[in-house]
């Protein structure tokens, strides 16, 4: 018994060292990319991490707690607007509010990027608390519809609160603060927080709720309180990703193509592609999504095949992407990773297997 515990402890220590080494390794890779890549590639690299945060936070609610929410775009919008209003300099605000002047309180707000991001997360979390309180008493399809409605309500509010959000004109001139370090740094924070949450007693309770809410309730878990907790945490990181997204794009508006349900579906695609319930799967799904969306643009250029020249076909890349996703979902029915995670144990086992088959 004692020896078993000691080996367990050794193993966690070993895993911790490996994780730290891995993070340093990724940081070095990012630094190399920062120096070598052109700004287009850096832009896509940042977007990968932003999508990653969106996916990991949605996965906490939809995959780990097993509550199907479709309101993620609403929280991203809330974070994006909050942080943008905090970082746009007052003189820029005076310039862009041309139909109705900005509310005096909004007009003079100004903070640095980090504070703005934290506040954005906080406001989103508050929004999640307010909406979650009544909505999380619903279950299944009802919750999905209520959360979808909520995110649309937020969008319509942004469209109509002229003196706060500049209405349909949108906000412009948001300082371009988001770079590789901010986006990947926040992704690291998100992953660390959510992984430790899942490994804590709260996380076990969330998993129990996912498997069977009634049984979990019978075991003494307060289902409502726990789902609300995961909903609020998820919204916090959605708000953070919204802030990063706004400072990446430098302009936001409440149009349906910017923060509409489509954005929620994109995030849902990333999560399901990677495997609903798997944190590492969500990250891989997000990275793949951002990468393929840009890389597949080559299908939309004019090309030559067997000496014949073909004109560019617009929309081709979405077709290819859809086919890829359909094939993926047929081959891996639960997404690339299912519910499994990439762990050091798993990698060691894989390497052992590899070595054995290699020596034979």
């Amino acid at each position, binding site marked *: 018994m004692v020896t078993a515990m000691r080996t367990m402890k050794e193993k966690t220590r070993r895993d911790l060292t490996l994780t730290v080494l891995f993070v340093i390794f990724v940081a070095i890779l990012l630094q190399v990319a920062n120096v070598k890549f*052109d*700004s*287009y*590639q850096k*832009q*896509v690299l940042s*977007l990968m991490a932003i999508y990653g945060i969106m996916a990991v936070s949605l996965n906490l609610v939809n995959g780990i707690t097993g509550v199907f929410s479709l309101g993620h775009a609403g929280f991203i919008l809330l974070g994006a607007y909050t942080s943008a209003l905090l970082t746009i300099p007052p003189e820029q605000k005076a*310039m*862009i509010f*041309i*139909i109705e002047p900005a509310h005096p309180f909004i007009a003079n707000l100004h903070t640095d990027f980090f504070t703005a991001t934290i506040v954005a997360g906080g406001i989103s979390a508050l929004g999640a608390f307010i909406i979650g309180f009544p909505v999380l008493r619903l279950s299944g399809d009802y919750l999905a519809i209520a959360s979808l409605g909520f995110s649309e309500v937020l969008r319509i509010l942004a*469209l*109509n609160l002229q003196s706060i959000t500049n*209405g*349909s*004109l*949108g906000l*412009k*001139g948001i300082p*371009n603060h988001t770079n590789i370090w901010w986006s990947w740094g926040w992704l690291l924070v998100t992953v660390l927080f959510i992984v430790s949450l899942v490994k804590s007693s709260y996380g076990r309770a969330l998993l129990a709720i996912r498997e069977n809410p009634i049984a979990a309730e019978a075991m003494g878990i307060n289902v409502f309180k726990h789902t609300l907790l995961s909903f609020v945490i998820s919204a916090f990181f959605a708000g953070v990703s919204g802030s990063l997204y706004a400072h990446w*794009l*430098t*302009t*936001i*508006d409440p*149009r*349906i*193509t*910017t923060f509409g349900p489509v954005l929620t579906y994109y995030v849902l695609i990333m999560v399901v592609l990677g495997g609903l319930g798997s944190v590492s799967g969500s990250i891989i799904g997000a990275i793949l999504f951002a990468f393929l*969306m*840009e890389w597949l*643009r*080559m299908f*939309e*250029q*004019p*090309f*030559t*095949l*067997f000496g014949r*020249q073909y004109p*560019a076909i*617009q*929309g081709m*890349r*979405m077709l290819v992407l859809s086919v890829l996703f359909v094939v993926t979902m047929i081959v891996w029915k639960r997404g690339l990773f299912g519910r499994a995670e990439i762990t050091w144990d798993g990698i060691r086992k894989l390497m052992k297997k590899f070595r054995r088959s290699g020596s034979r």
Partner: protein
Amino acid sequence: MRKTLLLVLLSFTVLSSFASIKIGALLPLTGGVSAFGELVKKGIDLAREEKPKVLGQDVEIIYMDTRSEKTEAANGMARLIDQQKVIAVIGEVISGNSIAAGEIAEKKKVPMVSPSSTNPIVTQGKKFVSRVCFIDPIQGTALAEFAFKTLKVTKAVVFTDIEQDYSVGLSNFFMERFQKYGGQVLQVKYKSGDQEFSSQLSQALAFGAQAIVITGYYNEIALIAQQARALGYKGFFLAGDGADAPELIKIGGQAVEGLYFTSHFHPDAPVTPVTKPFVDAFMKKYGTRPSTLSALGYDAYMIIIEAIERAKTTKPELIATAIRSIKNFQGATGTITIDQQGNAIKDVVIIQVKNQNFAFAAKISASALK
């Protein structure tokens, strides 16, 4: 196996490796407003056929799809500049997307010319972003000019769609100019999607309106016109380019007969010597009459080529300066002057619904709109 792989890889390599001048076209070719992107593309293709060479080199147009989205507009712009090394970009169509793409163009110091983003914010504070269309305020001023000077109207009622920034801006600028001339204005409000306007209309009739100015989009314009005529209103109807859709006549029928609206272009309006040849060439190539967006796409390409010729170089920064110094350029949509803010100053065309068709009615010259 390896051979086929190699073949597939080879087949993706783009032919265009020899020296040519590359101009990007960032357009919504798929997604929500793909119809707009297609129309602009037709205009650009025609312009490229007419002027395929500049500075003795071939011009190559690289189309980049934005799927009518902001994120894609930003990424597409970065890709055009960083990977395709274009020296100038035509795009985007929608104002919101143009703002996102414009930020990147500005940072990378590559000139961008939007064919049709009319929101004033697009070029605000930018050195490299310009456009060949007039901005929303100009239309409001042109309408006031036309109503007061040509139609001799002194009492007007303005219908404002408070959900559309376009409508709110247009109304403000109309009222500003109209009141300056001493006209009397009453403003009433409605929302996109409204069906019933009798309360606003009875206000308008009590006010004694000689003209009803509707600054929203065609759907509501048609409904308001119908209900006004049913209530016995006999005066004029005026509208902005939100009326510019065949649906206006389909929904409005006889009620919109005689309605005036402002627009960028009309195939029958001989605003410059270039208009007629353009319309003929377009008819020959596509079999239909050109729409406003095609004409604007045509002009955007021509302006960039003109700027490259004037700058006598392919350096993006010098081309941007040349674009900003273009004066009295003869385009298909009018005589274009690009001002220091990057906005086009040009004539506004007034179109009238006549015998259930859009007919050219008048031209408000740019000099009257200052």
